[in-house]
């Protein structure tokens, strides 16, 4: 585990995070009954998938008072660590409308817009290659990029709406509450434990300390989003990933701009500028620019974002700064210039797709949405799968509750047979070839897209991203110096997320603090919130001490892909995304 000498290639996996998830995050002895809170179904994560589960389940229960009655005083509890549902949610997002229309049959798309979470139907779209910082070449949209008829939405606004529906239907939505431990007893998930509040920097209880509570339930839904805190231990505990490929991650950073004149089309760009696509740098990235008409305020908004596969090798890759760089392209400038940035955020997403998906059920619990890895990173879409998985989970749980069945296995088959299974199977081998680099892998990707997944046949594998050896390259040389008006630094970006993390809270990020410079630089550049810092006087080569400014953290989760582990902070901490 030696450090490096000079600009060697060091993999973050050489510095595994100091954490034992099975030990720390699974609780095998339940508190006494009178100390527990007993609910019917507990849903971990008030995001689009978890709340779709709640919404669908409560729709079914509303027509079946008998089953509802049996669930007790709290039929459904949703645990959400943000201040409000949606506060930690971020996506592009342009969605296929089907699952939302299925879940909310009484709502028209005009209603969605009036509620403030949908921003218009896609009527025109364009895909560009950007060979250089000046050039943009319009290309015919590859089939997965076709978005005609889809809807631009905000997941943070959608989740707020879903929360309201859930509460009106009888759910208890416990915001500002982290689920820190999975309760497992006799080989079955029994619920979750909520996080303690009021601990000091070193974990010591402060004067206002309030311990967490065991929340027991008949069924537990893990809808924690990308790399859930409890999902990982659950997958290991119940061997759900047996035979699956390792999960891989991508990191997206987005901004919302209020613009002077409305954008008339949906835009995707596929590079290569400003990323370096050679196998050495290993950067795969793309962007989106979506028009958003805010019908509540009348504002013309634009969502712009940059996504990079975290399989890259240059430690100086910074998605936030790549986005700033990308904004200088004339194609973007003519859209944003004269406008004002009103939102910013960052979030990792699972990119492994079909072959990385774990088994979705275990005794007493199931996985929905990004926790299950349901993202189609070819079409850049996952929200409709999140909603659909929530619908299917809600139905599976309802039927189990009604019939007294203890297994949730039917959910597994329902997902496989649904649009989720079909769509993700089609693109199952599409992205893996990029591991060879964009140029060598590109033709295979095109083959996979062109044949709708029939070729290449079989199963292409993924490798773990923390095993990628890192080197200190020169991607950083292209980043613009922020001017505070059009291009921004990380900290002023974190600031507008409303990030409020208690200064004297314990550190929720587990990383080794003395690591090879290559690894430290990786973290420093990768983190969109400026959490990791290398002291000025650190040695140029060999190991360095990393300063972890964990109170900046926006909980994007990227660190988990590159050698660290994000755990849940105190409930209520972190950003408060509004329209991301």
């Amino acid at each position, binding site marked *: 585990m030696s450090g490096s000498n000079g600009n060697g290639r060091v993999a973050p996996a050489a510095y595994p995070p100091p954490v034992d998830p099975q030990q720390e995050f699974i609780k095998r002895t339940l508190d006494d009954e009178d100390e527990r809170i007993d609910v019917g179904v507990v849903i971990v994560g008030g995001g689009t998938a978890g709340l779709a589960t709640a919404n669908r389940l409560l729709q079914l229960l509303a027509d079946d008072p008998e089953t509802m009655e049996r669930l007790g005083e709290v039929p459904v509890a949703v645990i959400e660590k943000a201040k409000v549902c949606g506060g930690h949610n971020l996506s592009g997002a342009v969605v296929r409308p089907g699952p939302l229309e299925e879940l909310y049959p009484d709502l028209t798309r005009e209603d969605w817009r009036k509620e403030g979470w949908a921003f218009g139907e896609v009527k025109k779209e364009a895909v560009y290659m950007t060979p250089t910082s000046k050039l943009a070449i319009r290309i015919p949209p590859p089939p997965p990029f076709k978005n005609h008829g889809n809807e631009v939405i905000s997941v943070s606004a959608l989740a707020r709406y879903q929360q309201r529906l859930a509460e009106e239907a009888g759910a208890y939505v416990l915001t500002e509450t982290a689920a820190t431990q999975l309760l497992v007893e006799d080989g079955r998930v029994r619920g979750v434990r909520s996080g303690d509040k009021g601990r000091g920097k070193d974990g010591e209880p402060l004067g206002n300390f309030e311990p967490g509570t065991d929340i027991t339930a008949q069924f537990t839904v893990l809808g924690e989003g990308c790399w859930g805190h409890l999902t990982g231990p659950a997958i290991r505990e119940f061997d759900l990933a047996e035979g699956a490929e390792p999960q891989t991650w991508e990191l997206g950073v987005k901004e919302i701009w209020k613009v002077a004149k409305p954008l008339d089309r949906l835009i995707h760009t596929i590079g290569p500028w400003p990323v370096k696509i050679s196998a050495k740098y290993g950067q795969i990235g793309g962007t989106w620019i979506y028009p958003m008409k805010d019908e509540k305020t009348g504002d013309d908004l634009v969502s712009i974002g940059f996504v990079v596969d975290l399989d890259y090798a240059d430690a100086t890759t910074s998605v936030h700064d790549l986005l700033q760089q990308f904004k200088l392209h004339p194609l973007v400038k003519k859209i944003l210039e004269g406008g004002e940035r009103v939102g910013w955020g960052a979030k990792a997403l699972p990119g492994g797709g079909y072959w990385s998906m774990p088994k979705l059920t275990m005794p007493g619990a199931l996985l929905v949405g990004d926790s299950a890895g349901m993202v189609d990173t070819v079409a850049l879409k996952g929200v409709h799968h999140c909603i659909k998985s929530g619908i299917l989970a809600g139905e599976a749980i309802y039927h189990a509750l009604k019939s007294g069945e203890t297994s949730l296995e039917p959910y597994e088959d329902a997902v496989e047979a649904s649009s989720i299974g079909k769509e993700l199977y089609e693109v199952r081998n599409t992205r893996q070839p990029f591991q060879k680099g964009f140029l060598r892998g590109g033709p295979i990707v095109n083959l996979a897209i062109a044949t709708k997944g029939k070729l290449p046949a079989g199963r292409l594998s993924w490798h773990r991203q923390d095993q990628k050896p890192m080197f200190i390259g020169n991607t950083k040389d292209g980043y613009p110096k922020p001017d505070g008006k059009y291009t921004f*630094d990380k900290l002023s970006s974190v600031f507008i997320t409303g990030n409020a993390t*208690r*200064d004297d809270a314990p550190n929720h990020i587990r990383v080794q603090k003395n690591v090879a410079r290559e690894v430290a630089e990786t973290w420093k550049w990768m983190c969109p919130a400026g959490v990791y810092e290398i002291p000025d006087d650190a040695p140029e080569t060999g190991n360095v001490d990393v300063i972890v*400014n964990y*109170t900046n953290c926006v909980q994007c989760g990227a660190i988990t892909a590159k050698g660290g582990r994000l755990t849940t902070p105190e409930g209520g901490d972190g950003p408060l995304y509004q329209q991301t």
Partner: protein
Amino acid sequence: MSNILVYALHYEGAFNKNSLGAVAEASRLAGELGGEAHAVMVGESISGDLAGQLGGYGAAKVFTAEGPEGLAGPVIDTMGKLFDGGDYQYAVFGGGLLGFEIGAGLAARINAGVTMEVTGVNVVDGKLVAERPILGDSSISTSRYKDKGIIIARLNAFEVKQNGGGAATVEAIATELSPQAQQANIVTRGEQRGADVDIEGASILIAGGRGLGKAEGFELCDDLAKAFGNNAAVAATRAVVDAGWYPYAAQIGQTGKTVSPKLYLAAGISGAIQHKVGMQSSENIVAINKDANAPIFEFSDLGIVGDLNKILPKLTEAVKARKG
């Protein structure tokens, strides 16, 4: 109805600086309105000489009333009575704890409009119009009064200005304490408690950041603060508090304390936004940083690009020499 009543707080034979600013401002405004500024003092055995001094700041007349000091109730009673019987439309306060309490209570007593945290007052069409910063100083709103108006200033908003006038007419008046005023009694006043770091109350703050290099670097800040004297204190950024270089009580920033001293001297602070929101309303910002690109230079009034280890000790000596 064109006279202005203004409250003058005194303690141990001297006026509060903010009250003197309020008297000067009230005098200016009364002049524009074509009236006079009259001051009110409430206390135990107020000397006529002291009261008369307010003439030098523009008060045409000073009312003195016998009553307990340090509490709002007796002053509300006194001023309320003057409003009842006199030719007053406005009352002005220099801010501070008592100013806020008296101004608010008086507004309820005499059915007046009240604006607090006022930073500027103008005369428009023969009426006073007050400006106050709102929403964390991101915007300034203008208050207009329907009839009677009360203005409570932000500390240091009004300049203490002597107008060269002679002693004011002093008139002792009797005041009758309302039942509620009799229900509060001061036990001890003005007790000094050292020890605690009071960065919010200090008028000069020497703030240290990561650029100090190590915990011992704060000695440079401590020395400079001492050279400035009693009103100075040392503050710190979150980064150095996190690093354990300085106590949490001194932390400034988004989730720490928000300060607005007269002088904020930032040593080795880059000026990250979380820090900026905690100190940007400081009156004068001086920054010393070796990095010419540090964001703090974008909002400092005086920026020094250089090595604080060289500059701070010499600056401390120079300040000491000046303070003598």
